């Protein structure tokens, strides 16, 4: 029989990914959303082949376009925005005008999914909510994303990822006990995680629609999405005690913590089971730990006083071992250990590039950019990146002409009435200075361009 890894290397070969089918081909998504929570739900659908049309306001655009870390731009664009909105069609219409609404209604006729994350009630007030759109297209799947949900006494409270972390209890779980400092989860994961749940809910609705022919309305509250990951509520209801903050130690396995190595690097090390603990104890040359009455039984080992004693032993061992050696032993003997990876390591480690967890993408407008790959690799219908984010209004013509079948005169009239528009001189909205848009066949779709 062929070796397993040579079999899987062929099954998942990243070089062949582009030729494989797309699971969501033919699904059209109208993306009214902004910032991260809604856009990420739509992007996940785009990654698997859906045609996502993102709507923004002319000369203003998505609030997140200019929001880059420490104000650092990359080729006049926000580098992290490329990850949040890749693979989408960017159209920019002025919602205040009646003609824009007509365009949206026209798009809604052939759309399968709508994604929005305005404050609850706003989409309805603007007449682009579920009631209106489902009147035009009863089979529509309409995903509304918000911090606290579409109904309930707090529904009108505005929110960000931070507020969902604060309202769910997530924020108060990070930090060291007996200090007055808490830390929020970084990088707006309170948007990304619920955004992915939103995408999963849309996939469920698509599956359901195929079986029954019926569309539906989805109310995704990001706080509830975060609450789904806390077993802390159950712990409290059973013990009447709170787990609280436990610093770097995971109280559910022992050992499980982040340690400092002999060469001053940081190493996460854990043993979730008796078998892993046995492997670890043997690897560090202390097989007597396996039969120590304090540590022999998994549940005994977790009791706070025993956990403390064992953690001290592990602290000493890691402190006398280099990171490389600890990881080598973990690979060899079979216990979990990993160096704490930072941005630079993640961007540059060879295995991530080979696996497709991190991708060096060559874009027609922006050139080379390293972006994250998918968090699940599919052998049959893999996720893929086709293009990065685009300047505001970049796809106006292709959407109007190719998807909606508007004539050149109609497009001109819309431009003249300022129904559609593009970018101004702000970074994040405009193309890179070196890029000549007048030669771009997609921006000028349907016109003659000289290249």
């Amino acid at each position, binding site marked *: 029989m062929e070796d397993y890894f040579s079999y899987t290397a062929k099954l998942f070969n990243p070089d062949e990914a582009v030729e494989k089918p797309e699971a969501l081909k033919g699904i059209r998504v109208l993306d009214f959303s902004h910032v991260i929570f809604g856009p990420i739900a739509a992007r996940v659908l785009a990654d698997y082949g859906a045609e996502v049309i993102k709507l923004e306001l002319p000369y203003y655009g998505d*609030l997140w376009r200019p929001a880059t870390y420490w104000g650092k731009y990359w080729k006049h664009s926000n580098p992290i925005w490329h990850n949040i909105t890749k693979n989408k069609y960017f159209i920019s219409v002025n919602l205040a005008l009646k003609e824009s609404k007509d365009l949206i209604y026209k798009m809604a006729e052939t759309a399968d999914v709508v994604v929005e994350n305005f404050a609850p009630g706003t989409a309805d007030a603007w007449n682009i909510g579920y009631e209106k759109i489902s009147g035009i297209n009863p089979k529509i799947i309409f995903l509304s994303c918000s911090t606290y*949900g579409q109904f309930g006494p707090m529904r009108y409270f505005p929110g960000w990822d931070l507020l969902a972390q604060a309202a769910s209890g997530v924020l108060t779980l990070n930090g060291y006990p007996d200090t007055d400092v808490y830390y*929020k989860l970084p990088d707006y994961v309170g948007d990304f995680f619920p955004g992915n749940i939103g995408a999963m809910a849309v996939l469920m609705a698509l599956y359901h629609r195929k079986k029954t022919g019926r569309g539906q309305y989805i109310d995704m509250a990001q706080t509830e999405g975060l609450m*789904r990951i806390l077993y802390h509520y159950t712990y409290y209801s059973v013990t009447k005690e709170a787990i609280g903050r436990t610093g770097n130690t995971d109280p559910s396995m022992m050992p499980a913590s982040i340690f400092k190595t002999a060469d001053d690097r940081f190493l996460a090390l854990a043993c979730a089971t008796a*078998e892993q603990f046995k492997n670890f104890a043997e690897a560090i040359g202390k097989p007597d730990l396996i039969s120590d009455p304090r540590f022999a039984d998994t549940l005994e080992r977790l009791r706070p006083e025993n956990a403390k004693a064992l953690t001290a032993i592990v602290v000493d061992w890691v402190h006398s071992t280099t990171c490389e050696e600890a990881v080598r032993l973990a690979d060899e003997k079979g216990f979990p250990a990993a160096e704490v990876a930072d*941005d630079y390591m993640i961007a540059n480690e060879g295995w991530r590039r080979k696996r497709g967890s991190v991708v060096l993408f060559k874009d027609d407008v922006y050139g080379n950019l390293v972006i994250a790959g998918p*968090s699940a690799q599919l052998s049959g219908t893999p996720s893929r990146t086709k293009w990065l984010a685009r300047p505001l209004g970049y796809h106006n013509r292709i959407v109007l002409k190719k998807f909606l079948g508007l004539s050149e005169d109609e497009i001109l009239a819309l431009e003249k009435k300022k129904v559609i528009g593009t970018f101004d001189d702000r970074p994040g909205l405009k193309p890179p200075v070196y890029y000549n848009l007048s030669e771009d066949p997609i921006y000028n779709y349907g016109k003659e361009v000289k290249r």
Partner: protein
Amino acid sequence: MSAREEVYTRHGGKGGDRGQMLAEMMNVEGKPEVLDDILVLDISSANFAGIVAASFLAEFGAEVVKIEPPDGDPARQITPFGVTVQGVGIPFMFEGRNKRYMTLDIRNNEEDRTTFAQLAQKAAVVIESFTPGEMDGWGIGYRQLSLQNPGLIYIALSAYGQYGDQAQKSAKMPDTDITSQAGSGLPAQMGAPPNEPEPLNWPLRGGMWAGWYISGLSAALGGMVALLHRQNTGQGQMVDVAGMDAYSSMVGMPATIGFTWEKSRPRIGVLDFILYPYGHWKCKDGFVAIAAPRDHDFRALLKILGLWEQEDDWRYSSDRIPDILEQAIHLHRIIEEKTIQFTGDELVKMALNYSKKSARSKWRGGGVPIIMKLMTPEAAMENRQWLIRNAFQEVEDEQLGKYTISANFVKMSESPPRVKWVSSQIGKDNEYIRKKYLNV
């Protein structure tokens, strides 16, 4: 007034159809389940990412069979401080949603492997977390099962994935939450700044299973994409989730910033890299979270806190971003001097009153400063919002008694997810499964 009536009468917008629809949405009874026609086999071992993925599919109606060795999945003993109810750990109880329990000794018993292969012929999804290649070596990996059942979706969870040199080199390394968090870049961004004492300035672990839940969600999401493809074409496929990808692949920032900046971000404590103010402050009776990052939000915050004299110094978001750490910490203290004078409730009210007027006024520039009391999970359970939305559910296990879980994590008008029962008993459904799927 019942919760449902309250939604309709008071919290459903201006009444009318939308209120009715939202009220109905809370009611899951009698509604169809999306995945009621598929069988899922969860044979994951000591891995909550697998258990969570199976839970998601079970909540959407799939028949999920948790297959364990006769002495149970070691995951049953992964529980905070060793707390169990009759030997079952808290996280296992929390995830014991709508599942069937069957015992098969896959590791040691040839006959049980055959039984598993027979079951897999009827299954739409298999979820496993053995070391890469182990199932294949036993003759029940994707390669073998898909010959009999080409529509099978085979979800494999591991530390470094199923293919490539690193996956092979680290094949024996099990996947856990903390190593997944660390290996995918979360702790590197959390913790006190470098000038603070050790170990406060070390990378900090997220205080919940951020790694395992991201992997679990990614597995269910990937599985769902595969199920849609199967619905259209009949074709199955393999889904490969690596714990070391979890965080960095979901948020995307580490890879792109590491490339464009050619170095790593330092840890900046309670501050944020992009937005300010965007964090939490001490108040008279605890902590409040404050988000007022847009310039007009920030101006509004200065007004309600009586700090308008600061406006000239911090006017633009580029003045406030913490690229100069001392400067941002200075502003943090200026705000704290004010927040400490008020209770959490007072601050929340001040912000809400301002925002309400601001939303209707041309003259206030639309600034919406958001202030919210920092809640522990225990305090969140008391919040009326979640009572009305049925976000928490009291469940009863035949053997373990009553307890509370967070459920109904997304509301859907036609085919919502739901928790129908909880159970955790080893081998409880052996007979049921054999009868239904193996004609025994």
